């Protein structure tokens, strides 16, 4: 229990060291991982697992998933990306997914925020 807590603490401090100007720096992350692998401190595996989780959550926070019922044209997609970058900053990564379940419209997820303009969401909102 204690070692797990210590691993969490160490991972958190290492994670904090991976930022440059408030943005996760992939170079620093790689350097930290390399140093950990080389020195293999006590509870190395737990630290790795915690660090991996923190990095995953941070990447997910800056990751955008655009779901669409049909494939979008390049220009529409470009406009959409530009709008999202304008609102949320330019350190975002993008994924575009074709999701026929949506029936029509778009569903955009930025981190944990979701903007759902799909037909499916509107149907679900209809009073029963």
């Amino acid at each position, binding site marked *: 229990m204690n070692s797990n807590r210590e691993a969490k603490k160490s991972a*958190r401090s290492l994670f904090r060291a991976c930022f440059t100007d408030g943005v996760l720096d992939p170079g620093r992350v790689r350097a930290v991982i390399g140093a950990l692998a080389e020195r293999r401190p006590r509870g190395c595996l737990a630290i790795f697992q915690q660090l991996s*989780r*923190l990095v995953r*959550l941070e990447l*997910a*926070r800056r990751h955008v998933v655009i779901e669409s019922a049909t494939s979008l044209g390049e220009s529409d997609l470009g406009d959409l990306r530009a709008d999202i970058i304008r609102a949320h900053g330019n350190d975002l990564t993008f994924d575009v997914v074709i999701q026929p379940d949506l029936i029509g*419209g*778009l*569903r*955009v*997820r930025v*981190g*944990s*925020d*979701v*903007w*759902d*303009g799909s037909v499916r*969401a509107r149907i679900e*909102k209809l009073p029963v």
Partner: protein
Amino acid sequence: MSTLVEEINAQIKGLQSSAAHTNTGTVREVGDGIARVEGLSNVMLNEMVEFPGGVFGLALNLEENEVGVVLLGAYGDIKEGDEAKTTGKLLSLPVGKALLGRVVNTLGHPIDGKGPIDSSTYYPLEKIAPGIIKRRPVTQPVQTGIMAIDAMIPIGRGQRELIIGDRATGKTTVAIDSIISQAKLNRQGEASGDSDFRPLYSIYVAIGQKNANVARVISTLEKEGAMPYTIVVSASASDDAASQYLAPFAGAAIGEWFMDNGMDALIVFDDLSKQAVAYRQISLLLKRPSGREAYPGDVFYLHSRLLERSARLSEEAGGGSLTALPIIETQSGDVSAYIPTNVISITDGQIYLEGDLFYQGIRPAINVGLSVSRVGSAAQVKAMKQVAGKIKGELAQFREMAAFAQFGSDLDDKTKGLLERGQRIVELFKQQQYQPYSVDMMVVMLYAMQQGYMDKIKVEKIKDFQSKMQEFFETRKAELLDKVRIKKAVKEELGIELKTALDEFTQFYK
């Protein structure tokens, strides 16, 4: 004109294309009624979180990278990777008069099979208690119909009076008797057409109890005709811990509606020990640090914020009130345990029920020495104060002397008299369950005791004397009882009338 239509159409188009914004997260782990959700970056404390399948949870732990959500209802279908979303709403339930006569769960859903509840008003479960400015002192009585309580430990509207005792000592019975008494008074008040009459509605919150016990309570309330003035909130032993922890707050929200709308309500929390246990379970599963008896550090605040919601509001705030009768179960009479001491310190007094007295046949088994009402005497009817003023002292002296008298038989006349009187008072205060007395009847009985009419009656005949006296007054002196009820004080003239009636009765009593 056409441009105007175009503008409206543009607005409609804008509305149609607007996307719903939600804050979502992903379930990382689920078990024991707790879901750990990653994401949910904008979730508020105590906000309702929606899971697939219409299951809701309550965000109780906001941590750096995840949120601890307590699940409400059937959560068997929730799995790792499911999406959870914030709702922007605090947990709330329907309130209002439509709930009277109904049995609901913690979320206000009916569980009595009598169809949906027609209420459009919703109250949040967690609400800040009324502040100092909105309150006023307790001055109106709650007639429990239990003579020992109304005479010696009076309860006022807006008071918080703890009912404490071991298992099977009659705690629930005291509470149910009070509810039945309120229903009787409400019916009388409505029948009298008195415009100043303020009915007292009752809310019974069953926490962690066996379903059979809850069913028995409901059937008793129905049998005694109390259900039309009562709401039952049930979170039984088979319900999840979150429901048991939240049930008292649900009851308090229902009661607050009556209070906020200028009405009076009485709420029974049966019992808060089980609520504390449910809260301990949730806290430990949420990995919150534990303290004494493994309860979390905020278990005092859990009860204090709940009981602070009972109040008597000022005229400007509507003049309503919420009286609380929390129940605490002790283990082997240990009132110094963690939860009992907490709740004793929060409430405005306690009714202590003792197992020994119960098994001696003294029921309600109220230990007069340990029971106290800190604010209720201000609310006591004057007539009751006049006739019961000395009784608590006499009874306390009797208990002391009774223990002392066991050592020898040579007692002086004064001590003998004290013991004789004490034995008769104990007998007088014995009362059958579900048979509350009216305040005027209690005044007459206590007046008879005070004036020595029972001194010549054998101790074992006191109950017989009492019941015949009750019958005599109810059938032949009903107008005198009405006078006592209306005048609310035993003045010289009324005293003479009472003495005449009592003389008349004692002449015929055999």
